[in-house]
């Protein structure tokens, strides 16, 4: 019974990670906020599960489900890093376009305010 319970918990965590993946795929600020709520919940559930794990050691069904959770997590992480890389690199590109390069060769900082619009 305990094994079934753990497997259901793993499945629930995995479902949450897959939900986070969908939000991260959308990648809008709102979707990212939603992803962080889901990830928070998944992390809590996973932490609660830890105390019950030793009794499941060596259970192949539990291990298989744990691997599924791990794969779903890796997918989630890849999507988050990819979105982060997109925005991070764009910030650098924009910095270089608008502010040139610093003395150390880094792109200049992006200035969000006090822009001047020149018109001929």
């Amino acid at each position, binding site marked *: 019974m305990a094994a079934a319970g753990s497997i259901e918990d793993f499945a629930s965590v995995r479902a949450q990670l897959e939900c986070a993946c969908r939000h991260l795929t959308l*990648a809008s600020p709102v979707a*990212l*906020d939603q992803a*962080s709520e889901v990830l928070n919940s998944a992390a809590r559930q996973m932490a609660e599960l830890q105390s019950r794990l030793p009794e499941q050691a060596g259970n192949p069904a*539990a291990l298989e489900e744990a691997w599924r959770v791990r794969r779903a997590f890796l*997918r989630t992480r890849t999507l*988050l890093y990819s979105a982060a890389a997109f*925005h991070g690199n764009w910030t650098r590109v924009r910095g270089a376009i608008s502010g040139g390069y610093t003395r150390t060769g880094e792109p200049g900082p*992006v200035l969000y305010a006090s822009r001047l619009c020149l018109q001929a």
Partner: protein
Amino acid sequence: MANLLASLISSADTLQAYGSVLETAQNNVSNASTPGYAKQRTSLYALPFDPEGGATGGVRAGDLQSSRNEYAEQAVRQQNTGMGYEQQMVDSLTPLQSQFDVSGNQGIPAALNNLFESFSAWATTPNNDASRQTVLDRAGQVASAFQQTANAIGVQATNAEQQIRQTVDQVNQLTSQLANYNQIALQGNKDDAGLSAQVHATLEQLSQYVDITTSFQDDGSVSVLMNGETPLVIEDKQYRISAGLYQPQDPPPTYPNSPASMQVLSSDGSDITAKTTGGQLGALLEVRNQSLASLIGDAYQPGDLNTMAEQFADRVNQVLTAGNISDGPPPVSGVPLFTYDTTNDTAVAQSLSVDPSVTTDQLATIDPGPPYVSNGVPLGLSQLATPVQDADKINGVSYNQYYGQMAGRVGSQLDDATNRQQVQQSLLAQAKELRDQYSGVSLDEEATILIQFQRAYQANSRFITVLDQLTQSTIDILQP
């Protein structure tokens, strides 16, 4: 009266300006489904308003501006290249995996098990002609199974070669189109939204085949490089790539009669095979020159299937020829059962057969020892199923296990590719979403997005760190 006229002129200018905006909007709606089209917008400029000075105010339409963000476009193309690679790996490895049955019910493992059973039955009734005939029949089935698998993999290698040539043709066709578009742009049409849509749709298509980097020039043309360094298109010139079979010579080949490898050449004849690792072409080259070659051989390796066929045939022949058909005097030695092309180590599996001249009474039964064992040869052969001594093993494992490792490698390659393909699908969808988000966004809106994202990213990455530790420690605890 003068003021009234000025007002009328101002109103007319304003109507004209809004007319331009409406035309642009209408054009955007009409092209909503046009591949590669990015929305355009007309900027409106406020005119000075000073009635006493004669400035009547109002608005005037400015230039058309494209909402395309080249950075976001490049990100989509990059993920498209990844998708092309993973999809092709799955497509190519799926039929390969079907050649490797791990259930033991068909193909090489089934034929081997049947032969091992026939050795055991022969050991029980060593002088029974039917048992000996079964051994000959089953040995023939083993040879056929090796031949069929080698031929099927050979067909896949040929298919991969054909696909590589077709993919190269597709690349050349698309780069030719891009060179034509560049020519149109260079003739003074660089701001044509339709042309830009065609260029971007073509680039997106091209990116699924090969890894490309693009740079848009001030003259409106686009330069396209493959693998970051090989020119494909510069201004209105196309640089064609080509593909063909080749036998590497440096270092000199260990197996000169092996199946040739596939090579991709740039327009100046340089070998760019090793650098071509992205897109469908990268995957096809990897499958053809790495995955398939590891099974059926190339200039520097015999291929696992050939190694297995050769070692198995040699071991069976060795046991049979070490035995005696009769005690004599003089004792009559056994004859080898399997034959294969000994001149080419990379063609053993496909040439493996049972010597048709061998008859049932030529199968040696007696192990002269010491100790002398009347049914020692079939007993020794049946040991091949669960080998104890090193001579009965291949690379330290049984023949079935060796085959299992080969099949497992193909299966795990496919499994990895399938997982990566699923992730890549999400990454491509994400890149397209991000492109849409940045399309038509003003700098101020964009700044808001970046700030919001930064905050959300920090929140998410905290949970990611925690989940990384928790999911890994879970596996560590559960693993036996």
